[in-house]
């Protein structure tokens, strides 16, 4: 594992209007790692993801991807640096087909050149998507839509995959499948930063995690340490 992290988030504060959602948040993700950001609803997890992919701008602090500060990068070029974001609630284009959604993931010029290869790769990873390639995305089940959302992110050829609450709004059985998907993504060698409320589950697929509460990092450590921490067991796992 290299010494300089792939993604470095340093001293980020951000919010919406006068509401501050994040206070001086710092974290890092090294190449090959799977890192979790856990915490309750409203802790600022989604805001953090949005700052990293520049959907919103932070009021202070800086995000660096492989040594490139994102401050001056236009939002639509962040994906070219190798950051792909699977947004909360999947956010597929509901009236486009599965394959058209995947094509949107490969919009930037570099990704277009490799569209065929990556499409085959995604279809091999999720054969269900190949079966449903001409189906309108909005008519698929939640689990299938999550596959499509992950597939769409992979079409850009990312190094780092940001996953925002991949289990949100899904039935318990499907949640199991989604975490199995996350394991497979990891096995393919992608670096993953995943945000989750489902703490027990996510700590089983990540190497390390940060605990975010009311916009501040309260704890960090290996997944095993956090699972064993009495505070987390009491507050979040109901043990």
């Amino acid at each position, binding site marked *: 594992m290299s010494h300089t992290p792939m993604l470095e988030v340093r001293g980020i504060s951000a919010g919406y209007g006068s509401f501050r959602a994040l206070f001086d948040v710092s974290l890092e993700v090294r190449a090959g790692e799977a890192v979790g950001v856990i915490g309750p609803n409203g802790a600022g997890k989604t805001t953090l993801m949005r700052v990293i992919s520049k*959907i919103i701008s932070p009021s202070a602090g800086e995000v660096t991807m492989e040594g490139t500060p994102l401050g001056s990068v236009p939002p639509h070029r962040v994906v070219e640096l190798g950051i792909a974001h699977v947004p909360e609630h999947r956010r597929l284009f509901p009236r486009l087909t599965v394959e058209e959604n995947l094509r949107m993931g490969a*919009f930037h010029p570099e*990704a277009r050149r490799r569209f065929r290869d990556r499409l085959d790769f995604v279809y091999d990873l999720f054969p269900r998507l190949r079966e449903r390639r001409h189906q309108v995305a909005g008519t698929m089940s939640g689990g299938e839509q999550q596959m499509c959302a992950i597939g769409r992110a992979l079409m850009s050829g990312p190094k780092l995959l940001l996953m925002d609450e991949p289990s949100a709004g899904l039935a318990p059985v499907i949640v199991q499948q989604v975490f199995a998907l996350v394991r497979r993504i990891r096995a393919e060698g992608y670096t993953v930063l995943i945000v989750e409320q489902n703490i027990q589950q996510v700590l089983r697929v990540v190497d390390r995690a940060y605990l975010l509460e009311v916009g501040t990092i309260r704890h960090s450590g290996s997944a095993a340490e956090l699972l064993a921490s009495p505070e987390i067991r009491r507050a979040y796992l109901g043990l």
Partner: protein
Amino acid sequence: MFDTFLLEAIINGVLLGGVLALLALGLNLIFGVIDVVWICYAELVMIGMYTIYWLFVFYGLPLAVAIAAGIAVVAALGVLLHVLVIQPVLGSAPINQLLVTGGVLFFLQASATLAFGIEFRNLGLRMPVVEFGDMFISFARILAFATALVGVLVLWLFLTRTYLGTAIRAISQDREIMPLMGVDARRIYLITSAIGGGMAGVAASLLVLQYDVHPAFGLSFGPITFMVCVMGGLGNMLGGFLAAFVFAQFISVGGYFLHVEWGYVIAFVFFIAMMFVRPKGLFSR
């Protein structure tokens, strides 16, 4: 008894429907992507007609060149409209956006009066009439219908087969995540405005072969285009396409049974009644 004149009216309705469909598609495209109605759409057509007229009659350019230039001018006008007028009000209330393009409508009309006067002008071309049994169909109308259909087909292929076209359809479904796809929404807006303007330019080239141009020309096609779009469901491209042919039949066949003006009266009464029954459009889902 077989009624040749009724058949002629129906055919003329279909031919008119082609041009209306092209106009409705352009307006729907803009609305679907940018979420703003260009109330001044038919005035862009009017400017295109004047451009073609001017280049062809005054400067004596070949018709094909004048038409190409006319389309380019209106496409550029569409971009200009977006940058100067729409972009500043993108975050405003819809009624403000409507009023601002309404202002552009009267601005273009007044400017045309100032620049070209109120005379009716035409290219002075004599277009052949096609004889079909007992029927006489204007060649200009057939040409307009065929070109409009080709235009619709090209647009459809563009929207479904290219990255840019897919992005144009996607942006109307989820604006906020477009940057995550690597799409610069501002650029898509500009391209869409150019295409929407270009389609008005194509319509201008078809209409200038059939009608005289004058500064208020937009008023005879603007309201119809808008109503066709509403009838098909604003932003619903297929709905607008079909509604154009329904509306054109009302005008053409209604005009055949009563009087030309009655065709419009019947069409608008139908439109108003439809607003009570199916306010989201004939083909709403």
